[in-house]
């Protein structure tokens, strides 16, 4: 059995419309591997949207127990399309959870970062407060801050872009 270019296009379309990130197809003497644009290869597609963030920013949210955890929820498939920067060297840092965003450790203190600041993966870029619980948000990538979109003291939704960072070496 062989695949025509049309078949591959059709399979690609099916993947586009599905909620999956990856597809492996094995036929006689043929292996086809498709991956949605930018999706990290398995084993953890679930973690993709927040994979670059330190675990503490998620772990500190008291998630209510009791709900059956569904394996491999392909969150990325429905990720918000918020006019991402066209320059591939510039990356969005999304809010890992919903809450109130603070740019500084306390009122009146200088902000964690300003536009132009150099950041490392571990650099704190802000705090998201959920019901009095403070969650530090880290840059997750090395680079230079090109834009700060989230306003101090404003509600940020899950996945909302907080800052943009231009990647460097």
């Amino acid at each position, binding site marked *: 059995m062989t695949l025509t270019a049309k078949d591959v296009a059709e399979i690609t379309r099916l993947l586009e419309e599905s909620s999956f990130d990856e597809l492996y197809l094995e036929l006689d003497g043929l292996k086809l591997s498709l991956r949605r644009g930018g999706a990290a290869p398995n084993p953890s597609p679930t973690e993709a949207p927040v994979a670059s963030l330190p675990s503490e920013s998620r772990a500190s949210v008291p*998630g209510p127990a009791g709900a059956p955890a569904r394996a491999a*929820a392909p*969150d990325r498939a*429905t990720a918000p399309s918020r006019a991402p920067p066209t320059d591939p060297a510039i990356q969005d840092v999304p809010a890992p959870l*919903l809450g109130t965003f603070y740019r500084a450790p306390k009122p009146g203190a200088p902000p964690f970062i300003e536009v132009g600041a150099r950041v490392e993966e571990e650099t704190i870029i802000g705090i998201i407060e959920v019901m009095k619980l403070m969650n530090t948000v880290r840059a997750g990538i090395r680079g230079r801050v090109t834009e700060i979109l989230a306003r101090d003291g404003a*509600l940020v939704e*899950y996945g909302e872009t907080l800052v943009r960072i231009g990647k460097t070496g």
Partner: protein
Amino acid sequence: MTAIRRILIANRGEIATRIIRTCRELGIETVLAASEADRDSVPARLADRTVCIGPARSAQSYLNIPAIVHAATSVAAQAIHPGYGFLSERSAFARACEEHGLVFIGPTPEQIEAVGDKLRARAEAEASNVPVVPGGAVGSAEEAAALGRQIGAPLLVKAVGGGGGRGMKRVDRLEDLPHALELASSEAGAAFGDARVYLERFVARGRHVEVQVLGDGAGRVIHLGERDCSVQRRYQKLIEETPAPGLPRRLRRDLLEAGVRFAERLAYRGAGTVEFLLDLERNAFFFLEMNARIQVEHPVTEAVTGVDLVAEQIAIASGAGLRLTQSDVRPRGCALECRVNAEDPSRGFQPSPGLVTEVAWPTGAGIRVDTHIERGSRIAPFYDSLMAKVIAHAPDRVSAVARLRAAITAAHVEGVATNLPFHAAVLDDAEFQAGGVDTGFVARFVERHRAG
């Protein structure tokens, strides 16, 4: 009185759409708390604003109490409507709302706890002189054996923290009871965080009939008639109707009064449903449980009574109390509802998630469709498979069934498998058409069609 001008809806799917509709009619703004998977859903588009509370998985979004309460206070909502499922019957959520000055559109946390604990609910039923299925709590294997002998087999081992068919084991021979008890207890501990179990007689041939109540929270309660939900598969309701077909007049009156008595004892606040098992062999009814929320099948009651139950929920929550008296409730005609699910009856009712490429919902006199599905909607695998509820109302049952049958034929869905053919077949079935089937009907029906 709390003036409710903005409501945060902590739910998704058809019920979110349903709540938005009433809010619009009342001039109340809506903010939908949606997961990432539902950002582009129909309710997200209909709501005045949508806030993304977390990723697709419910545990981090629709069950995320801090995120939802934080979102509600941040958008300056006065109240939260929890819909059904998710956090609707979590007392911790109702309490968190209260603590943050938000009106929880539903009962008090104490009432949720009283009916959530099935043993306590049984005790409340007994105290309000409402019959319960013979059975009771068992603390040890010896107690269980003694009670088992008293009730007789077959019997059910039920989890105190369960409900809606979850956490139940059937025991056909008393010698199997110790093992079933142990298994049920450890499973209940793992699933509900509460290892307590109790025994109940298994009613071989029963109907599921429930009473819709509204309470003002100060002790006044009215009922809005009953619903028969006996067409169920593995405790999942598929077709509901009101009135319950063929109930003797006295039995119906006793049943409705029992439902009201139970809710009165709790001084129940808001909309709730008291579920009963109708024992066909004994022509008696027994209390099963109370659901402290709006039910999926509430539209059949709305169809015959003309009462908007969501509007009444909001009125009660705002402190306006009960706006209706019992004599204001005058049910007219008969209404039935089919739950259209994205599941494949030919493959053991397996869920069928995917992209809906074409869809047409029926319209017409006496037809109502509650749905969040349109062309291009995606049925996500993370949530339940309910796509739409098709409701038909007519002056009598025969006309209502015919109307519903025509509506089911007119409904058209492409891209995912649905149980529409199953509904069509049931509506054509002579036993169903005769009315008053028991809860074993679907299993027999499926078996018959497999054989045929």
